[in-house]
């Protein structure tokens, strides 16, 4: 967050880069291919700025250092993915490729576990909510039906009495 304060100095260079980004994102729905992202990250360095006062989430997502999309490439071609990513600096501590892949696999497993937990939570929350809705609607239905029946009874009782009152009767009052 502190890095945002530096944006004043980088503003001129940033605006050009951001214009390119926003035009490319406007054209493409998905995340741009990773190699162009990585070169972008060197310039941006996790800073954010506003473009015309509006900074949408997908632009920010593009800027941020998210290793997630790269993880999918790991099994296919670990070394080229690493070298293209610019993650080399963090990897210098573990030069052994076997240890590397083990670490990566562990991280992958953890992420997958979290993702699975989120998926289960999502599913559970949805079914929970559906059950609540069903209960609520059944209750409402029950209540409304009872109200309807009551009203019908009242109406029927009323109908038997009132018409007689409303009708005009002609009675014979003449003496003949």
């Amino acid at each position, binding site marked *: *967050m502190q890095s945002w304060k530096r944006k004043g100095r980088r503003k001129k260079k940033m605006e050009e880069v951001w214009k390119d980004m926003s035009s490319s994102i406007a054209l493409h*729905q*998905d*995340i741009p291919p990773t190699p162009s992202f990585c070169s972008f990250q060197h310039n941006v360095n996790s800073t*954010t700025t*506003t473009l015309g006062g*509006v*900074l*949408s*989430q*997908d632009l*920010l*997502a*593009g800027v*941020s250092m*998210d*290793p*997630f*999309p790269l*993880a*999918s490439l*790991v*099994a296919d071609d670990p070394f080229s993915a690493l070298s293209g990513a610019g993650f080399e600096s963090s990897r210098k501590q573990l030069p052994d490729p076997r240890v590397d892949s083990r670490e990566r696999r562990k991280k*992958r497993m953890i*992420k997958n576990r*979290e*993702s699975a937990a*989120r*998926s289960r*939570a*999502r599913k*559970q*929350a*949805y079914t*929970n*909510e*559906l*059950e*609540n*809705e069903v*209960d609520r609607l059944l209750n409402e239905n029950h209540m409304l039906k009872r109200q309807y029946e009551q009203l019908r009874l009242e109406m029927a009782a009323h109908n038997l009495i009132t018409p007689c009152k409303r009708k005009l009767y002609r009675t014979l009052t003449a003496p003949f």
Partner: protein
Amino acid sequence: MSRARDSLVVGRVIGDVLEPFVKRVSLRINYAGKEITNGREFKPSEVVNQPRVEVGGNDLRTFYTLVMVDPDAPSPSNPHLREYLQWLVVDIPGTTDATFGRELMCYEPPRPTMGIHRMVLVLFQQLGRETVYPPGWRQNFNTKDFAEIYNLGQPVAAVYFNCQRESGSGGRRMYPI
């Protein structure tokens, strides 16, 4: 009532965004007639325009604040922009809807690029009508802190829905690992 809170707990909205609270006011929100129930899925195309937000309560003189955030920005597995402020409306009179309030942060249609995001809408009851300053930026908003700063207390209602990118395949990647 307690089961509605369970959806918020199970979906980790209570935990990631809010503390446990008691629902006191009705909050009905729909996008073009499609009502938001916790955990329901909406596509970005369905949420491109701001929803209709009907606030309960029983008094026109009580004012409410509506906050809409995305706690899973930019990706649920790496939410370093949590929470991303999508919408902020204050001074909504009770029994009316959000159009009667004052928009401090205009509605930004959700456009998640990675993963399945939760979009949380929280309603607070205001003590009065004091000056509220919108944040300078949308990312890294904190609903709890915001409520504390402006003495909004505990939420009186909350609901959330799920949203993923238009061509999303339910959180699964296209290519096998």
